[in-house]
């Protein structure tokens, strides 16, 4: 009888969660409707900051969607059993986040109704156009990979499918990095370091999201995760965080090395107002140093600490993307080197940006879509990691 009550509670919780997710998604849809009828005037974006808060959400989701597949790759490609047991969940999260991120990106377009044009008119020199192929290819590949893992008769194909996903996601995140790397005229972008930086960032962000979702699912199923397994994935998160910090530091140090970039670096790292604050406190301290302490400090590193560290890594990701995307546009374009300039179009001035509620609603709507896909799938299909008695491999 007690079991039945517990079951009823879980059922009810499921519908409450679904309703909550649905409400947030609806709020996102409302924001889209408002942006459609009034135009982008109701957002904080303008002709200087052309990509705003929706892009922060979308790029986080897309980059994390690629990185979370790391868990699957270590299982399929490198044959580690504890990761293999988690590959289906990782693949599901990847599809869910990709769907959420792309929805935000599409609905922020000036003319989302013309999406068909993007499919029928294809410019082969555009990184954006490449990404249309990369994203849809990723969807299909991960779906096939999931099928080979979850359908017993297809199990023999899961290794090659895993290998294909492994290769594809590297190319995909390279593509995401290239969107910025090809913008040679802007001081913040146009660096060959960006694709590898995004790849390593994706590892950390994806694994952090995975940790949080895994914790919730184990709690949902009233199971406890073997601490030895958590020990391994938490150490991996630590290494990814250190790796991404290294690449972010390298990106800024190379910029500092070029004299013409020092003004921009000074802006982002020292006197740019909200941007240095977000970079140092948000990304470096909250998003990197604190998680590293939670992971590595003797006496810490238990389940609660790992989940907290993971949540902090996600918060740090948002801080970094805000600085990278918005701060990168806020610093004036250097059209006339050697001159101070002024005009009615913001030349020579730091652009101001105040994200509006609609941008947040749209971004949160994307998160809600990822949340709904995950919740429903986890409920309907068996994504619970099935661990054998743990043997280190």
């Amino acid at each position, binding site marked *: 009888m007690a079991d039945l009550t517990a079951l009823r509670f879980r059922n009810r919780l499921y519908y409450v969660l679904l309703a909550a997710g649905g409400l947030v998604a609806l709020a996102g849809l409302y924001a889209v409707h408002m942006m459609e009828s*009034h*135009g*982008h*005037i109701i957002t904080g974006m*303008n*002709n*200087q900051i*052309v*990509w705003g808060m929706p892009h922060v959400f979308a790029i986080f989701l897309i980059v994390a969607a690629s990185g979370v597949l790391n868990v699957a790759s270590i299982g399929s490609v490198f044959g580690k059993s504890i990761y293999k047991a988690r590959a289906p969940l990782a693949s599901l999260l990847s599809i869910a986040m990709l769907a959420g991120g792309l929805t935000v990106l599409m609905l922020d*377009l*000036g*003319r*989302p109704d*013309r*999406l068909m*044009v*993007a499919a029928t*008119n*294809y*410019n082969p*020199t*555009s*990184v*954006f*156009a490449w990404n*249309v192929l990369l994203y849809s290819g990723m969807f299909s590949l991960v779906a096939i990979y999931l099928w080979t893992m979850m359908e017993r008769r297809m199990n023999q194909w899961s290794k090659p499918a895993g290998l294909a996903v492994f290769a594809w996601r590297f190319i995909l995140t390279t593509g995401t990095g290239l*969107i910025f790397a*090809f*913008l*040679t*005229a*802007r001081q913040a972008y146009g660096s060959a370091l960006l694709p590898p930086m995004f790849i390593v960032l994706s590892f950390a962000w994806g694994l952090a999201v995975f940790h949080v979702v895994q914790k919730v699912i184990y709690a949902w199923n009233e199971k406890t995760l073997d601490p030895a397994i958590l020990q391994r994935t938490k150490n991996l998160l630590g290494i990814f965080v250190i790796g991404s910090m290294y690449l972010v530091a390298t990106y800024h140090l190379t910029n500092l090395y070029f004299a013409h970039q020092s003004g921009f670096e000074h802006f982002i790292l020292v006197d740019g107002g909200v941007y240095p604050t977000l970079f140092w406190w948000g990304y470096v301290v909250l998003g990197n140093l604190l998680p590293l302490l939670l992971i590595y400090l003797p006496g810490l590193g238990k389940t609660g600490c790992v989940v907290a560290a993971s949540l902090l890594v996600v918060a740090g990701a948002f801080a970094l993307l805000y600085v990278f995307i918005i701060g990168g*546009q806020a610093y004036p*374009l250097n*059209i*006339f080197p*050697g*001159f*101070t*300039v*002024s*005009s*009615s*179009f*913001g*030349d020579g001035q730091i*652009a*101001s940006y105040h994200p509006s509620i609609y941008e947040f609603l749209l971004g949160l709507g994307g998160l809600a879509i990822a949340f709904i896909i995950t919740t429903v799938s986890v409920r309907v299909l068996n994504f619970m990691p099935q661990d054998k008695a743990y043997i280190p491999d």
Partner: protein
Amino acid sequence: MSDLNTQRRQFLKTSLGAAAVAIAPGMLLFDTAHGKAEAGSSKVRWGMLIDTAQCKDGCNDCVTACNKENGLSGGTAATDSQWIRKIELKDIRSGRELSLPMMCQHCEEPPCVDVCPTAASFKRADGIVLVDRHRCIGCRYCMMACPYKARSFVHEPLQDQKPDVPRGKGTVESCTLCVHRLDKGQQNTACAEACKNKAILFGNLNDENSEIAQKIRSVASVQVRADLQLNPGIRYQGL
């Protein structure tokens, strides 16, 4: 028998005549709307030479003329479209001050065309870089890529558009070098025409007898951000 043939011929003639009368006005309108078909020829490269010595600080005539010609509001809020703007410059080392108009530089290798996912940004055979308003999905990637910050995004619904210059909410736009004028056979842009000091010289860079080509041969002029090697069609004298 022959009477029948005559009647049939007469009928065919009348029908053809009626059809021609019915179609002609349509064809005429179609032709008018599309302007001259031979306008976009690669024999032509439209361009400008801007003499900064003649461009007066505080004068905004080119901007006003552009706004009027293209039906822009003339507002200067961060969300308003500005196809051409006046930039005041001061040399950091010498302190020399100058003023110049800045607009789409109509590059030979335009980054906006490279990055546009739907090929809505395109370059005509005569060198004019345009946005196809029917293809633009409003992703703003071209605005990120443009080294001259020449493009604007339409943030609000538009009213009272000029029939010759279609625009659209949610799409990106920029200076068209008054392509609607050129396609009607006119030889000058609104900004060049409005400049009292003749600071803007417009013409065909490929025609060696044109005034602009001759002047470019005789005076020193530069392209803005020439280091990017985009070969813009707009050149500046005295910069």
